[in-house]
Structure formats: C-alpha cells, structure tokens
C-alpha cells in the first residue's frame, strides 16, 4: 500500500532520516519505534507531504506521490494525526471534525453522517461537540485528533505518538480503538516512543535510530528482540 524506498530527509544541513526503506501492507498496523529525535515524526510528515524528500521514492497504492502537495494527499487517502494533537483550539469539536472532512466537500447530510460515525467510535466527543477544542482534556483532544483524521476517510491513517502525555487508562482506550480501526479495514502506521504498547498491537514494526532503520520484523519478534528489550523496554517485562 505504501512503499518508502531509500528515503532521505533533511532540514537544511541536518540529516533527519537516512536511507529508510519501509513498506506498509494493506490491513496492517505497522509501528515505528525509536527514541526521541530518531526521525519518526519527520518520516510521517514526509508521508503526509509536509516535508519534501531529499532523495528516495514514495509510492502509495502503486502511485508515485512525491510531487503531490500535502493538501492533495488527504484526498488521495492519507491522513495524519500529528504529534501533540494539534487540534484547532478556538474552534468547536464539531468544526474540527468538519475541517477533517474539508477535502471531501460533503453536503450537510453526509457531513452529519460522517460525524455520527466518529461519535459512535468516540462517544465522549459527542457530549462535547459544541465546546471549543481547547476546553477538552488531553485524552479527549487525542480522540478528536484521531477522529478529525478519520473524517477524511483515509485508507492509510498515520498516528504520531497517540499516547503522549496521557494516563494509562486513556492510552488503553485509544489503543483499543486503533485495533478496532484495523478490523474495519483502515491501515495504520503508528509512531510511538512507548515501544511495548506499539509492538504489542503491530503486525509489523521498524526500529528507527538516529534516522536509520536498524531493525525490522513482526511486532512479536521485535518485542522479544534482546536489543529492543535493552534499549526500549527497560530490560524487564
């Protein structure tokens, strides 16, 4: 579904991602784990079109999308829920969701139906639909960020650190939703610092270290891998 081929990404002189080759198969949850600053967010931003590739190729559903600007990638079927949630704080939950569907140009009835589907998945958002997003708790904002991305009806959902700063109970709820999305046929590319969580749900996973892919395998394999256990899982478990 998505192929990154020997991708290099740089911010001016700073090389953030080097020679990354990553494949995402349809219907899977693919995880990218790695320490802070490894280049995980940069990779997702490049897939969403926010930062250009310095070298390498990117194909989505067989089509070369390297030249496609960010706002057209949503319509192509890729949506990103960015790190730190980035909801529009002074706009209501409903307006945030409406913006998520911006590229679909839905009429009122279809828009209401699409929102109802999100409220089904995230019942707490329904209660808060007329509140400005800034008044939501961290967990609710994360749900809104994911729901907003889903409003674009993506076939590939990119999630950047959905667990960031959240309580364990909320994290479990959100990971439950991520696996439910896979069951509905949404392909998920998940970036996490919490490696144990991400590898636990992932069909396939990559370890990113200072911009390079150093390990890859199934989620279960990497969970058992001694280097992963030492570096990201604190040795225990």
């Amino acid at each position: 579904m998505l192929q990154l081929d020997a991708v290099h990404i740089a911010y001016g002189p700073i090389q953030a991602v080097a020679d990354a080759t990553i494949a995402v198969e349809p219907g899977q949850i693919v995880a990218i784990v790695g320490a802070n600053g490894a280049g995980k967010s940069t990779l997702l931003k490049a897939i969403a079109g926010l930062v250009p590739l310095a070298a390498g190729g990117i194909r989505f559903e067989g089509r070369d999308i390297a030249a496609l600007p960010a706002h057209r990638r949503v319509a192509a079927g890729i949506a990103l829920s960015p790190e730190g949630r980035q909801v529009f704080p002074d706009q209501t939950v409903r307006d945030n969701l409406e913006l998520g569907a911006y590229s679909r140009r839905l009429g009122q009835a279809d828009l209401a139906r699409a929102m109802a589907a999100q409220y089904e998945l995230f019942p707490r958002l329904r209660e808060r639909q007329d509140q400005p997003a800034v008044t939501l708790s961290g967990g609710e904002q994360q749900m809104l960020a994911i729901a907003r991305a889903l409003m674009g009806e993506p076939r590939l959902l990119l999630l950047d650190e959905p667990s960031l700063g959240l309580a364990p109970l909320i994290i479990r709820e959100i990971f439950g939703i991520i696996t439910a999305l896979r069951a509905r046929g949404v392909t998920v590319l998940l970036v996490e610092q919490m490696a144990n969580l991400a590898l636990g749900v992932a069909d396939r996973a990559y370890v990113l270290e200072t911009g390079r892919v150093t390990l890859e395998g199934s989620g279960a394999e990497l969970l058992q891998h001694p280097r992963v256990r030492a570096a990201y899982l604190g040795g225990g478990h």
Partner: protein
Amino acid sequence: MLATYLQVLVSGLAIGGVYALIALSFSITFTTTKTLNFAQGEFIGVGAFLGVTVLYLVSGEGSFAALAPAAAGGARYPLAAAVVGAVLGALGILLFLAAIRPFAGKPGMSWVMSTIGFGIILQSLGLAVWGPAPVNMPSPFGDDVMRLAGAGVRPQEILVLAVAVVLMAALDLLMRRTRLGKAMRAVAHNPQVAALMGINVAAVMLGAFALSSALAGVGGLLVAPIASASLFMGMGIALKAFSGAIMGGLDNPRGCIFGGFALGLLEAGVALWEAQWREIVIFLLIILVLAIRPNGLFGARALDKV
C-alpha cells in the same frame, strides 16, 4: 450641548467604522500569513481615485476634478464599489505574488520593505495617471447636512457607518459559519495542520490578500466623499487603522474592530475640545495601552501565558 455630543458620536462612529474596516483588513493578512501590507494606505487612495474615475466615466456628469452631485446617484456608487473591490482585490493578489510570497516565512523582514516599495510604485503610477490635485467626490445621498436632534449629520457619515458595519458583520459570519471561514481560521492557527485537513493553504493566503486589499479600496471609496479624494489621504487612515488593530490585538478580528471604533470616537471627542491635541492624545494613549498590554487589549498571546 447634547446636539454637539451627538454630532461627535456620529462622526466618530463614521470615521471609526473606516478605521475598523481597515484594521480588520490588516488582521486578515496578519493572522493567515503573519505578514502585513504596508501599502494599505496607497491602496485606500487608489481605491478612492478609481471610484471617482468609474463615476466620471459612467455618468459623464461634470469634470473629473469636480463631479456633479448626480454623478454618484442611482446604481453608480454601488457599481463603483464593485469595480474598486474587484480591481483592488486583483492588486492584492499581485502584491502577494510580487512582494510577499518571495519573502514570507523566511528570516528577516524583507516583506516590510517590499510592500512599502509596492505602495510607492503604485502611488507614483497613480500620480502619473490622475495628477496630484485632490478631487471632490459626491455622496450618493447628496451633501446636504441633515438635522438629527439638532446635530448636523452628513448622509455619507451614516452610509459609511452602515456599510462598514454590514461588511464587518458579514465577514464575522463568514469566518465563523462557513466552510471557507473555518478553513481561513485553521490556516491562521497553523498552516501546516491546515494543509493536513486538505486545505490549499497557498490559495487561502492569496484569498486573504485579495479580501484585505478589496476592503482597503472600498474603505477609500467610503471616506472620499467625507474628506476629499487624494492619493495621499490613505497614509493617515492606514496608520490610525493600524494603531487601532495593534490596540485591539492584531490577531483578534473583533478586537481590531473595537480598536478602530475606539480610535475614531476618541479622535472626534478630543477634536471637540482642542483639535491640535488630537494626534498627540491618540498616540499617547496607544503607547500607554501597549505598555500595559503588549499584545493589545484582546490579543491572543496574552491568553497563552495563563
């Protein structure tokens, strides 16, 4: 006495309405692109002269420098407003492409110089076409002073206030209720995240400059019958409007409108006692407000710290 106050109120609200409109036009480009059009003053002057030209061409009444009152009658003034809005909107797009886009988002403030330069070029071209002399523009409702509870009120003052209020209310609705307005607010908050929604950020920015410039042109057309139209008249108006925007909070459209009206009322009020103190009082007050609230009265960044 009451009549005098009423008179001050009406003329303060009228000129305040123009300041508010132009203040809003500054806010529109600032929130969406973090840049400002420092040629806004010239855009106001060109808007006024373009309006006079349209009235002259379609009416054939009087001479260019002294249009007959009938020249602004009927549908001619609205027609002039439509032409001014369209032409200035196109000029705003040209300004964005030539003077903003090459520099926006880059370090340094080259866009300050490039927009000022664009204004100077525009003014020079205007002088070449229209000459330096001010011209009189008739009001569509005539220039006879009306009596309102003893106060002398010019019809154009009422028109200016009404049009400014209607335009601002329409823009407020646009920003809060429509798909396009919500997209503009999203771009204002964070262009990258807006792009993730599928919003064409570059197009929204272009539209913001077109809208902002059209407002400046229409503002010029509105004030021209109150003062007289001159290519230099925009500078003072733009400076006051900018001050109003800074005072109300450049990133808050409603704050900008408040700042514009407050400045207009203050100006009219101070002029009642000592006209020569007007500018001094106004700018001292602005400095005082900013010393206490650096982001303006309703600026958003003051909220972020909470």
